[in-house]
């Protein structure tokens, strides 16, 4: 009989634990656990204890160079074997590049289904209830999954991690990937970072985002100034990324990043549902927009109706003054 929760944790490119791992462990615990966490990659063994402290009862470490960087063909046989061994009732991954790619393929291997990009998970008896946004963030859907394991991917920051507790006991086991190079049909020939300096958008406590209303790429200079004053990061709407005004990795929204700062300042952004999907858990949204009826104001705590070019400089200078006072 399938039981417990299996989660697939992740390391970041620079070797730390991807925060979504702790959120997945917490989500699994909230569903009743016990939680087994898989950590796959290279040099990931050192992260196992952190997973135990975060609430994992067992950590399966699979340390193998074939697993870095991620390729579906390398991960699927490994994930399939571990899933068979653990035989979980619920299986969770992050809505990350890995989760997006791996979860559907793994689900197919077990003739089950996966609810992608979930914001809330709960149990109804033995049944997982997975709640997720759809229709570009305009609606929410709740699913049950008629297969085993019941799979879901979890959106970043949807669940609070448990407070780390170094006295927690957990079993840590090592396994081989059991994958050979000839099983990997794809080949990564190049990898490039687009924008690395400064605060990471996902980690920033202040995000200042610009939209088409900025009128051109130059407008972002002003936003960058304020971000520097506030120690924040600059984001963008898809419209401006599509126009080439700002780099693609800064896109916030449904098909960009989900951000969770304490303060989100939207400048010249209309607030389409697909953009709002990336800031749905932000409590303090400030909108500067010349259209009083813009959708962005509906979800904003503070609003300014006007031309950003006139308002923003005064706002920025006052923030600078208040910060240095």
């Amino acid at each position, binding site marked *: 009989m399938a039981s417990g929760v299996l989660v697939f944790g992740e390391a970041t490119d620079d070797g730390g634990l991807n925060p979504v791992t702790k959120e997945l462990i917490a989500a699994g615990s909230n569903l009743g656990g016990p939680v087994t966490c898989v950590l796959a990659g290279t040099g990931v063994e050192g992260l196992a204890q952190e997973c135990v402290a975060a609430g994992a009862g067992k950590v399966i470490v699979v340390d193998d160079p074939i697993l870095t960087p991620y390729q579906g063909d390398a991960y699927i046989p490994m994930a399939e074997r571990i899933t068979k061994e653990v035989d979980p009732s619920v299986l969770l991954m992050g809505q*990350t590049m890995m989760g997006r790619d791996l979860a*559907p393929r793994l689900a197919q291997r077990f003739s089950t289904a996966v609810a992608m990009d979930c914001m809330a998970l709960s149990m109804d008896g033995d049944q997982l209830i997975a709640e997720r946004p759809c229709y570009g963030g305009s609606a929410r859907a709740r699913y*049950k999954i008629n297969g085993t394991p019941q799979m879901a991917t979890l959106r970043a920051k949807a669940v609070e991690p448990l407070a780390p507790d170094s006295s927690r006991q957990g079993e840590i086991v090592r396994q081989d990937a059991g994958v050979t190079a000839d099983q990997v049909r794809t080949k990564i020939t190049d990898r*490039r970072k687009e924008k690395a300096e400064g605060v990471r958008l996902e980690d920033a406590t202040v995000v200042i985002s610009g939209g088409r209303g900025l009128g051109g790429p130059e407008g972002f200079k002003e936003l960058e100034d304020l971000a520097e004053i506030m120690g924040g990061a600059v984001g963008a709407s898809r419209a401006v990324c599509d126009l080439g005004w700002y780099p693609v*990795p800064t896109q916030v929204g449904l098909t960009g990043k989900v951000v969770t700062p304490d303060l989100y300042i939207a400048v010249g952004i209309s607030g389409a549902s697909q953009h709002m999907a990336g800031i749905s858990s932000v409590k303090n949204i400030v909108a500067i927009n010349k259209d009083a009826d813009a959708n962005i104001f509906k979800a904003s*705590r*503070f609003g300014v109706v006007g031309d950003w070019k006139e308002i923003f400089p005064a*706002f920025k200078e006052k923030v600078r003054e208040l910060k240095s006072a």
Partner: protein
Amino acid sequence: MPHIICLAKQVPDPETPAAQFKVDEAAKKVIPVPGIQPVPSQFDTIGVEAALRIKDDVADTIITIVSLGPDSNRDTIKHSLAMGADEGVHINDPAVNDSDHWATAETLAAAIKKLEPYDLIIAGRQAVDWDMGVVGTTIAEILDLPSVTIAKDVKMADGTVTVERVLLDGFETVEAPTPCVVTVSNELGEPRYPQLRQIMQAAKKEVKTWTIADLGIDTPQNRTTLEALFVPDTSIETEFIEGESAQEIGEKLAVRLNEEKLI
């Protein structure tokens, strides 16, 4: 002759104004808005664009559009044909028109098998109605093909597909042997818009209609149950900052945020 299969779904217009977007909670369906026509799912149209860019280089490439859904899906196929695709297959069968993602993937995979041989299958990274993002990769798994997700550029030459993939903080180049599945994202660029002459030509292109019986499979079963569909209420009270001049308003905003300990 290279053969590319593009999957194309029809969806309610995602640009429907928020105020008009309504859900029938009992039926668990989105209520169609009078006067707003369904449209081809944006990422699928981008997929057709990706295929056409390959065809621009290798002129004898054949592009087949496969779409599953009710009668109106014909418009989506016609749009892709007008963009420059060669043939269409419309799977139209009440037994599967309303399937979940998994039954849809199984049905489409059966249709793709019938269209063998092929070199490349292109799907959108997700359909813009349910935003689930699983059909392309699931088809790869059913057909035991390699897959590469979230592409911004797709090239095909000498049995290798070279994909520029969008990562969180950059890009990677991935090579996959044909046949394989690629899902595309908006970073690929704007899809071309059909000219009137192409729309007229498209009317003459062949669209086959298939049912489950034509595919020779049993009706695939849904693997999910939709328990609820609703519109979340995300609106909050907004404090509008007002003043005599832009200068005053800008400064006031900073002061208010400071009072709330937000800066």
